[in-house]
């Protein structure tokens, strides 16, 4: 870990330099802040709680080509598509950075790993910005995170004073950034100052994060058949926004597109909230009802994932809280689960 400082006015210079290597950062677009590739004079936004889309987009793009194929003359050629992506992603909130380590469990660990994901993880430097504003929907502290957490981030910036940031560089990618631009970063402040600044962010109050999760996984072990799921699911519109915006949801489908002999196999995000997600040839569907799918979404995040990876599959980013049109979101559901008797009495 090394610390440096960065003058506010040097931020624009940093952005300009990162842009050359390929940069994704939050911009204001049609009234919302979203992560986008930064080209030309595009202005990086700084006044946001969290971009509408998550940093997942950089590592598991909504649509990506896996390979191209050519079947001309009754042959078959398959050519892998080198994974594209930026070299830097800037403006990442601590919850999103932490979510990358949850995606790692799925794509970078175990018997099978996804080399495209891994390559992006190896090559993209994640530059976080600690949160000055805590949103009403934020509940990161429920998951042991905080507005100043550094899990999953290579670099984290904290506001030091009106003129400068305190910048923490971690690991190989973080250190490389510090070394690459020595002219931009100033000497670290005194240790007590660092300690005070970081602690002030890490101990910042996150009101919605007071929700207590102890015992919820164990309670859910016995709630598979609970009437709560049907009650919750009744209002779901099957829009899938919750899963698309979630930085930890990773479900995808594979799709071919061909014109003549040539074509591409794409990987595209999918959603467990869609009826055809588990629809099999012949019409059988193991999760035919919204209740089955709602159960799947919340069981996966609060129970199955915990069994498989030892932690919840949620970082409390609050996107589903803000964006589900019918209020069927993680925070509400946690309270609903806590509020019912696990045996089905309400």
């Amino acid at each position: 870990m090394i610390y440096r400082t960065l003058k506010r006015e040097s931020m624009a210079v940093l952005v300009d330099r990162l842009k050359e290597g390929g940069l994704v950062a939050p911009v204001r677009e049609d009234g919302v802040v979203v992560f986008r590739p930064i080209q030309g004079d595009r202005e990086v936004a700084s006044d946001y709680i969290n971009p509408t889309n998550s940093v997942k987009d950089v590592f598991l793009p909504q649509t990506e080509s896996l390979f191209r194929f050519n079947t001309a003359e009754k042959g078959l050629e398959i050519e892998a598509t080198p994974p594209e992506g930026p070299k830097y992603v800037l403006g990442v909130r601590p919850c999103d950075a932490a979510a990358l380590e949850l995606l790692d469990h799925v794509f970078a660990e175990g018997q099978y790993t996804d080399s495209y994901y891994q390559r992006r993880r190896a090559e993209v430097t994640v530059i976080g910005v600690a949160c000055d504003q805590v949103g009403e929907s934020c509940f990161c502290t429920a998951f042991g995170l905080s507005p100043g957490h550094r899990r999953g981030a290579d670099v984290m910036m904290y506001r030091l004073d009106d003129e400068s940031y305190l910048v923490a560089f971690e690991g190989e990618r973080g250190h490389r950034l510090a070394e690459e631009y020595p002219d931009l970063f100033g000497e670290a402040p005194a240790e007590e100052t660092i300690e005070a600044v970081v602690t002030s962010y890490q101990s910042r109050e996150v009101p919605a994060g007071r929700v207590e999760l102890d015992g919820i996984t164990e309670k859910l072990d016995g709630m598979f058949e609970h009437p709560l799921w049907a009650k919750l699911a009744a209002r779901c519109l099957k829009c899938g926004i919750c899963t698309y915006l979630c930085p930890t949801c990773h479900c995808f489908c594979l799709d071919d597109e061909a014109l003549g002999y040539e074509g591409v196999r794409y990987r595209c995000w999918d959603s467990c909230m869609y009826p055809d997600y588990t629809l099999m040839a012949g019409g059988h569907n193991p999760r035919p009802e919204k209740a089955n799918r709602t159960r799947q979404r919340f069981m996966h995040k609060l129970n199955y994932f915990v069994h498989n990876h030892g932690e919840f599959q949620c970082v409390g980013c609050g996107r589903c809280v803000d964006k589900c049109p019918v209020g069927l979101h993680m925070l509400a559901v946690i309270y609903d689960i806590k509020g019912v008797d696990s045996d089905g009495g309400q």
Partner: protein
Amino acid sequence: MAVSNVLIPKPATITEIVDQTPDVKLFRVVPDDGEIFDYRPGQCAMLSVLGRGESMISITSSPVQKDCLEFAVKRVGTVTEALHDAEEGFKIGLRGPYGNNFPVDFMKGKNLVFIGGGIGLAPLRSLINYVLAPANRSDYGQVDIIYGARSPADLCFKDELKEVWPKAEETRVHVTVDVGDDKWQGPVGFVPPFLEEVGPSPDNAVAITCGPPIMIKFVLQSLDKLGFTDEQIITTLEMKMQCGVGKCGRCNLGDKYVCVDGPVFSLAQLKELPQEF
């Protein structure tokens, strides 16, 4: 740097196609690089028809057969239809093997009762031919193969049912059809009551069953009546699949992914999982 990914198949060629039933064909497949992956009975592979998509199919050949991989495919939708339209020499994409396998070690020294329905004989066939191979035959006891299909025309692997397996050492083949025809002289009736009629003993036996869900449901009841315990019953599950490697998220039962933790489960294991299949 060469780019690769677990989700990218390798080119392979369909070298032979053998009609089985009006809607099932057997495909012999050889990878274009000549390297047939090692696999165990019960494992599956992803077959791609480029431009159409990809399907998970059980490897119906047995590992003792070294010259090609065999897949029996029922025509039900986009990819399977395209495979049925293919001719010998057609190029497909192949990746695998995927999933767990039948517990061949646990079954050693035991009598084996195979109960199959329709295309469900495909995964069982891999194990049957593995067990009946000279190198392995003495590791296993009596083999009973109980199999049924809708009609005589719908029976898969007719040659082996008629000519090969009945002649194998300590092996009995029992075949039934839901509805007979002019030429059919064998038993008529559904698999579960037929199984009870055949009445295999549960003593030192393992039952391995695969078929349509409705058949499995009643076969399990019949096996229970015959005295088989949940540990003695092995079955395979089918779930919608896309990736086959535990990442796309859709094939789970609780915290298990059927593509990597299955498709083979004992009934005892299945009862521990959420009943969502």
